[in-house]
């Protein structure tokens, strides 16, 4: 019962995020909404797994957490560099010593 309440709370939060993603106004708001939506979906999947007694499907939640990270970086490069091929430098103006 508690898990169901948790699921409901997450669903409402997801709807609010969709609203922010549609409204914008800046592109960064949209990325933020998409990224945060991803985190909420990870939680939703985990909770659903327990709600239906199928915790072994946490794999899907795990893979989301991963993908979310990669897509966020891709989006950031999209804005900052307008290219997916640029490397991200380690520090301002110079390369890190270990590179």
């Amino acid at each position: 019962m508690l898990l169901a309440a948790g699921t409901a709370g997450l669903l409402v939060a997801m709807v609010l995020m969709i609203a922010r993603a549609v409204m914008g106004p800046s592109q960064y708001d949209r990325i933020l909404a998409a990224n945060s939506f991803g985190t909420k979906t990870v939680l939703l999947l985990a909770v659903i797994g327990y709600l239906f007694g199928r915790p072994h499907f946490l794999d899907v939640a795990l893979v989301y957490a991963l993908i979310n990270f990669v897509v966020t970086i891709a989006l950031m490069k999209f804005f900052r560099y307008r290219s997916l091929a640029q490397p991200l430098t380690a520090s301002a103006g110079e390369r890190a010593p270990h590179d």
Partner: protein
Amino acid sequence: MTEALHWIGGGLVVIGSLLTLFGAVGVLRFPDVYTRIHAASLTDTGGATLALLGLGLISGLTPETLKLAFIWAFVMLTTPAAANALANAAYGSGHKPRIGAFQIIPSDAPRETDPEDADRSSSQ
């Protein structure tokens, strides 16, 4: 004992989900990108920690707990890194904060938009 753990775990899940929900309200209501990033990243990590901890209490010591720990680690790695990158990118592209010690914008000032966003969405 397990019964009690289930209730405590469920309670944590509910609190975590509520925290996420409050964060989402913040993202919807706050005035500029930086405050929204703040709201989202803080509540996402906090909410995820609470909810995953709750689920861990429910499942006890099983392989699933390990997966939950991994998910938690990923979220803790992803969300702050993403928030950092996002704020970095927004600041780098000339977004000015609307709230903060550095500058106070009167409420009747024209709304700030991303210059790039403006040319993209001007046709809308």
